[in-house]
């Protein structure tokens, strides 16, 4: 290849490389921001199963954000006496209340069992804004604090979504919610 032919290609490459790097930096910063937000917003409190470690109860980060474990069977709402009206199970992923029993969702990008597998970024944002699945569908059950997260900025919610898309996938089919006692 002669120099006059190679020059344009070299120039193009030189121009493209920084922008690629910059784009990667930007994506990396977005994911880091998402990781930070997930850590302070209490997502692990319900979406990561808790276990008892050497220092006491703690989220099991080997199953981070994978939701209610499929092998932890719950078949009916808690039986409670007044003044109590709600309860949670030891993994902190099953919640019983007037709405029935809700199980925290698998937020990892597992292609078969991750709840976000069909979500677009915009649908994720709308879900937090409306409290409805994919922004327009069935209502998200308590205690998911979407009204609080709905106050986050679009950029913050995009960062959370970007982070969740790249955490290690965990195959875990979360059971369907249970209706309240009649």
């Amino acid at each position, binding site marked *: 290849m002669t120099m006059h032919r190679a020059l344009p290609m070299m120039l193009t490459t030189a121009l493209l490389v920084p922008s690629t790097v910059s784009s990667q930096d930007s994506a990396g910063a977005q994911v880091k921001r998402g990781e930070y937000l997930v850590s302070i917003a209490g997502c692990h409190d319900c979406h990561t199963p808790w276990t008892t470690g050497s220092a006491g109860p703690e989220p099991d980060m080997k199953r981070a954000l994978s939701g209610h474990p499929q092998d932890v069977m719950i078949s009916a709402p808690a039986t409670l006496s007044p003044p109590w009206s709600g*309860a949670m199970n030891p993994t*902190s992923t099953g919640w019983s209340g007037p709405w029935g029993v809700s199980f925290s969702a698998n937020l990892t990008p597992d292609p078969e069992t991750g709840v976000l597998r069909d979500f*677009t970024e915009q649908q994720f944002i709308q879900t937090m804004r409306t409290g409805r699945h994919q922004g327009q569908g069935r*209502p998200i059950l308590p205690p998911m604090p979407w009204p609080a997260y709905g106050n986050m900025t679009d950029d913050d919610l995009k960062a959370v979504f970007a982070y969740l898309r790249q955490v290690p996938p965990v195959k875990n089919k979360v059971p369907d919610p249970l209706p309240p006692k009649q």
Partner: protein
Amino acid sequence: MAQVIAARRLLWSGQVRCSVAVAAMLLFYGILKSEPAVPQPASGSPPSTLQETGLYADFDTLQVDSAHLAFAPQYPLWSDGATKRRWISLPPGTAIDGSDPEVWIFPVGTRFWKEFSFNGERVETRYLERRADGQWLYAAYAWSADGREAQLVSARGKRGVYPLAGGRTHTIPGVTDCKACHQGGPSEVLGFSTLQLSPERDLGASHAELQPEPHVDLRYLVDRGLLVGLPRALLDTPPRIAAATATERAALGYMHGNCGHCHNERGSLQNIGLFLRHSVMNSDEPAIASTVRQSVKKPAPGQSPDAVLRVAPGHPDRSGLMQRISSRSPSLQMPPLGTDLIDDEAVRLLYRWIEEKGASIQQAHINEEGR
């Protein structure tokens, strides 16, 4: 939430832990129950009474301003059996731009009203107004028990406004839920469109309504200069859903009017690949192509495992679509909002359509083999 985390770490065991969790749950449940307002782009404030929106010429006698046009779409939305009356008001000298027949553009100042009654009793009137910034203003007004006044409902909506069958009650949806449907497709106005106002009305439509005076349809609007730019072909050959049978036409029309505002090719749910909105510009029917023999993408909670297809021809009981519309369990029901009672008439219609679809496919196979 941070308080819950801190409490959990410090007070993990026994009743204290439980009480923290329960408090958190109840807090969130209380929040959910009251459907709190979600920040929306501000676009002015609605008037505090229905009277101030200008619907009535005389509020004492509830005489509607004769300048407003009453209309009825040919495929109405099911709202638990509510009787509805609807009006549109265009500012004098303005017109709707219909050059894109799928997305009419309404002039600034356009107003819509939709009145909901149960058993002859006015319950609510919903209101849409196009503001100067191009945004639509959403509001709902709840009628007093004596029917003498209608006050603005909170943006969070209002529950329990009228008793329905089975111990259920009518809910006035919050603004967020209104927008979930109205902003789910290419146009925020849903019932006033090319197909809905076609002079070729479907007499077999589910819950078909008589057209109120002055019979507003495409021809009426164009003749009076209220609708401009509509392609001439749509006047010469008014749009109608192309279907193999009258049942199919009504079924597709029902899905257009009740499902297509979210399930369409241009809205944010397009990645689901379920297209129930009829297009007046395309001869094909995406509602058939995206349902018949098409796999359920992700079963909803409570859906039976044998419903692997959205529409299984000849097998309505095994069709995901039937299971969704036949339920009012919050996780399974379709539509997911705006209704608390199953639409039995629509269930019968779609059941019949899916049965007939099976028979027609079977007949086609017989004919094929006979050649």
